[in-house]
Structures are given as structure tokens and as C-alpha cells.
């Protein structure tokens, strides 16, 4: 019985491992977003980074579009706006809650949440 269930458990664990496999940039312990991003965000369009940050506040929300959160990078305390699309699942941020965000910079220089992990 146990032996019969083992493969299922193993598959589930693998699946979880795959599902929660950290993307590039989120593998480190800190944020790897370059400082120059603040001066020229468009210059980093297409790049992806991971950021350890806590939720400071929600700046704006639009139904069907998403929201913009203000997060504070854990390493240096810098504040960053983060665009979270409406369809991001299971993301229910709370103020002060720490996350590891996987972000991607779009054409306008916006930091768009692509993945997250609660810390």
C-alpha cells in the first residue's frame, strides 16, 4: 500500500519542486535589480529579476487590469512600484508581508510581477 502510493507521492514532490523551482534571479538571497533601473527603466526592458521585498502599500487598482503595489526591497530599503496583473493567481498581498518576487521589465520599464514566493 505504502509502496503503491510512493510513486504518486514522488511525482507530486517532483511536480512541486518543478513548480517552485526558482527562476533565474530569484535564486539569490537579495534583489539583483540594478540601481540604474531607477534612472532609466526602459533601458532594462525584457529583463527579469528577483526581488526580496515587503509590501508597503497598494498604490492603485483597476479591475480587469491589475494593481500597482509599492514594495520595499529588503536589502536596501528602496521603494519600488510593482505592477501585478489581475490574473495573477493566489496573490493576496498584505502590508508588511515579505515576498520574493520574480519580475520582468516590460517595454515601458514597468516591473511586472511574473512569479512570487511568500517568505
Amino acid at each position, binding site marked *: 500500500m505504502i509502496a503503491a502510493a510512493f510513486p504518486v507521492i514522488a511525482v507530486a514532490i517532483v511536480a512541486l519542486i518543478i513548480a517552485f523551482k526558482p527562476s533565474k534571479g530569484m535564486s539569490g538571497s537579495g534583489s539583483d535589480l540594478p540601481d540604474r533601473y531607477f534612472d532609466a527603466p526602459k533601458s532594462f526592458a525584457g529583463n527579469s529579476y528577483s526581488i526580496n521585498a515587503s509590501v508597503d502599500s497598494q*498604490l492603485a487598482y483597476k479591475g480587469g487590469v491589475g494593481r500597482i503595489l509599492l514594495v520595499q526591497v529588503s536589502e536596501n530599503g528602496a521603494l519600488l512600484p510593482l505592477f501585478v496583473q489581475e490574473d495573477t493567481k493566489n496573490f493576496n498581498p498584505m502590508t508588511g508581508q515579505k515576498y520574493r518576487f520574480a519580475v520582468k521589465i516590460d517595454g515601458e*520599464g514597468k516591473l511586472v510581477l511574473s512569479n512570487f514566493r511568500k517568505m
Partner: protein
Amino acid sequence: MKKLFILSIILAVPAFADGNIETGSVPANPAGEKTPQQAAVPQPEATNAAAKETSKAKPSGSPLAGGAPSAGMMPLNLNSLGAGDSNAIISLLSTQGNLTDAMGQKADEAQVRIVKGRFEKYLNAQPATSAEDLAYNDLLVEISQRLAGKGGGSDDERVTDAWRMLFKAEGYSMDDQLCRTIADKVINFWQTTRKISRLALQNEYLEKERKRRESDIRSINSADRQDFIAMMRGKDATPPPSREYELDPVKKRLEETESKLKENKSYEASSRINQKLDFQSLILQFFIQRRYYHSMIANDFYRYIFSAEDGKLDGADQLKQQMFGGIDIKLTTSTIDALCKEAINDTANGVQAADYLISKGEYHSATQRLMEAFFIGEHLAPIKTFPLERKREILKYIRDTDKLINAVKVKHVERAEEILKEIQEYATDFDSGQIEAFIQTSKQLSNLALQKALVAAQTGNQAGVETALQEAVEFWPTNPKIQEFLSTMIGKVDLKDVATTDFDRLFAQKDFRGIFNDRFRFAAALAMDKSRSDQFMEIMKRMETIETSIGQAKELSRLKNNFAAWEIIEKVYQMYPEDQELNRMRSDLTLRASNFAAAISKAEESLQNGDKWEALLGFIRAKQIYPMSSFANDKIAGLAEEILQNCN
């Protein structure tokens, strides 16, 4: 002759014209008892009471007054004086303003000046009270009295004595050799009389000669007639030659004799007439020159010299007309004599009255009386011996009234008041009522005109202001309120004009702080200017905001909160970037909050470039520098909304 009459200008004040020289105010002269002889020969000093009687008895309209007009001549009688017409006051104040000549004609300005000058000269002259003066006065009286019979003797003796005394009087300088003129006339009469006597003897001889020549003619004619009768008796007789040749020389001699006789008689008659006329002229001349004693002495001589002859004065029709007007009267030596005595008495009474009035402090009347006396009897002893200190008092009054006249002339009301007060202190009879009324009226009318000017000014009636001001100045040129009014008006007009110009200039330059700094001046000046007033109010609101922010920024900066200070200034700066003070403070604070300012600046720049996310990042960075920044917070919230709106 007319010039001489002008010289005899006299005062024509009513009192004098009526022959009333205020003797009533003078204590009665106790020396009222005089002999008729004394009455007939007036004294030069005021001791002649008999003459005073004559004066009292004289009819209204004394000849010496020349029938002068009396209406409106009362001192300070302003009648219906208008407030703006001070001429009447000036005329009445002037103690010389009422001078008329013997014809009642008002003296012109030049004459008044001459008269005034002479009177002032007299008032400053030492009195003629030396022994010589007194002796001369006595001698004149003595001559007159001797001729009148004093000392007795025959007419010839008295005439001769008086004639000798004339030479004595001639020796005094003050006589001006007038007595010598009389004496010469008397000598001339005597010489002519002697010549006429000689001519009478010659005429007697010529009469005899004429009779002889006439007898010769008759004899020749008789012989001729006898020869003719004899011839007619014989038929063949030849007519004898005519004796005409004998008659011619005799007739010629007769003609010559008759011509000479006629010439002598003509000389006798004409020389008498000429002498009479010469003497009469002399009498009149002395009278006109107001040398009354000389006139009377000459008159006395005349009456003795031309005794039993008609005393009518010929060639004095003009004088008669001037003295008696249209009255049909015979002007004789006696008339002149009476006029002289009356003038002497009037002078004495006038001087006495003046003296008494001065002692009572009635200087106005005293001046009038003394002037009358002076111009009637300038050369008489009472005038010449009047004390200098009394005359100086009169002079002071005249000068004070002159000052008052000048003040009234130029309508210097304050000065007139001041002088009036001075005069009132010593002249008890000075009628100040009408002068005071004039002063008050001038003041009131001037102030009233000023009120009119004020009303006109308030309604913006510039022409009305000018007219009213002109009126105010006319009534009282030195009215201090005029100056006040002008200062206020000029100030107002200037302020308004200058302020308007300044406001427009500052407004065009957008120098609202300049306007704010002088806000009180502009507020007052532009109150009535609707459009500018609105602009001014807008500027004041703007400046209130700026000043408030500056105040807050200063306080925050003092608390070392330069970000907040900068932010406040920056907000206002974005609304009103032209304010210099705001700029200066912004620059200052930008240095102190440079990183915050730079973040904001960078964010703004991104926003202007359309990079909203970049701008958002900038404002967030600013917020991180100064978390309380409302500026950043507002922008952050707004930009976040906008970004989401733009997302599909």
C-alpha cells in the same frame, strides 16, 4: 490862478463843511470877552474868542469849505460795501482820501501825494516857537492892529507907521519878503500919486496954453472977417489975401497942447486903475496862499490908499464862483477880510480841538481836525507852534492807518487784524466795527468758497475747483486753509496719478512683489479704479499665498526640515514662478534639500517626457527621501492611477 487854487486843497469832511469843528468837545475858552477892536483884528494864537463867535455864527457851507460834498464822508462809513470791494474801506480809512479843492473837486492821486507829503513834513517839523518866530507873529498882528487904529493918529500917520513896520517884518526869514511886496506897492502908489500931482500942474499950464492958442485963432479969424467986410463995400475992390497962413502954426500948437493934456489925463486915470488892480491882485494872492495876515494888511492899506472908492474886487470872478457858487454877491475887500479872519479862527479852533482830542485818545478825529487846520492855515501861528510830540502822535496814527489800508488793499486779513488791534489800543474813537465786519466777511466767504471747491473736487469737477479756489483767494488770499486744501488736493492728484502709473508699470513687468510692497499706497490710490482695483486684489491674493508659503518655509527651515520647506516653496513656485523672493528662497532651499529636489526634478522631467513609470519611480524615490512629501505622495497616487488606466 487855478493852480493856486489846487494848492489850497482843503479837507472836505462833513464836520468842516458844516462849519462845525467840534468846538463843542473843547472846553469853552474863558477868554470870551474881547473888545470890538480886538475882534476886528484876530490874534494868531488861539486867544481870539471873538473870532470864535464869528466862527459859530458862520452859515452852513462855509466859503472856505468850498461847498465840499459831505455825503458818505463820515469816518469808516462803509455804506453798502460789498465783501469783495475793499476800495470803499481804503478810501474811508485814508485820512487823505477825502481831500477836495476849493471847487469841491476830489483831489487826484498826485495831489493827494503832494498834500500827504506836506502834511507829514509838517508833522515831523520842529514847532516854530523860537523868539524870532514869536516876534514875527507879534509884528504881523501889530501891523494889522496899527492900520486898524491902534495907537491913534491920522490915517496918514498910521499908514506910514504900518508901512515902516512892513520893512521890519520883511527882515524875518519866514516872511518870504511878502511884507516887502506890500511896502513896494504902497511906495509905488505914492510915487504914482506924486507923478499925477506933477501932471496936474502941467495940465494946468497946458490949459492956459490952450486958451491962449484958442484966443490967437479967434483974433486971426476976426481980422480976416474985417478984411472981407471992407472988401465987400467997394465994387471994384480986390479981395484981400486970406490969413489962413497965420492960422496954421497956431492950430498946430493947439493940437499939440490938447494931445498932451489928453495924454496926461489918460495916464492919471489908467495908473489909478492899474494900481487898484495890482493891489487887489495882491490881496487875493495872499488869501489864496493862505497868508491871511498879509492879505488883511494889504487889504487895510488898500482901503486907506483908495479911500472913498468902490471896494469891489475886479477880476476875481473865478474866486467868487469857487467860494460862493452861483450866489450873486459882490466880492469886495471886506469880503476877503472877513474870509481871512474866519480862516484864522477856524485854524485856531481846529488846532485847539485837535489838541483836546489827542489828550482824550481820539486820534481819528484829532487827525481830521489837525489836517483841516493845517490846510486852512498852514502859515498861521497855531499851526506852526503846535507841539512836536502831539504831531508825532498824529503821525503814528496816520502811519498805522496807512498800514491798515495796505493790508486791506492786498486783503491780508491777518495783518489787518493785527494792525487794527494795535490801533484800537490807543485810538478810542476808531470805528473798527466795519473793518471787523469786512475781515469776518472776507474770511467766511473765502472758507465758503473753499467748501465749494471741496465739493467740486469730490465730484471730479476740475473747472468748479478752479473757480471756487479763485473765489476763495480773491476774498482772502492768505487764508491758511487754501494752502491746506491745495496741499491735500495736489497730494491726492499726484498720488493717484503716480500710483496708477507705477501700478501699470509693475503689472506689465509682472513685478507683483513691487505692487505688494507698496500695497497701502496702491490700495488708497486705486480704490476708485474698478479694473485696476480687481487686478490689485488678485495680486494681493497671489502675494498672500506666496508670503504664507515663504513664512512657513522659513519656519520649517529653522526646524531643519528643509525638504518640507522646499516642497512648500516649490508648490507655490510652480504657480507663481515670477516672484523674486520666492525664487531666491527656492534657490536657497534647493541647495539645502538638493537630493529631494533633484528627485522631484527628475520625476517632473520624466513626466514631461511622457515616461510615467520613470516619473513614478522618481517620485517614489523622492518620497523615500522625504516620506511626508505631499508633493510626492500626490504624484505617486495620481501616476499610479494613470498608468493603470493606460494598461490594456
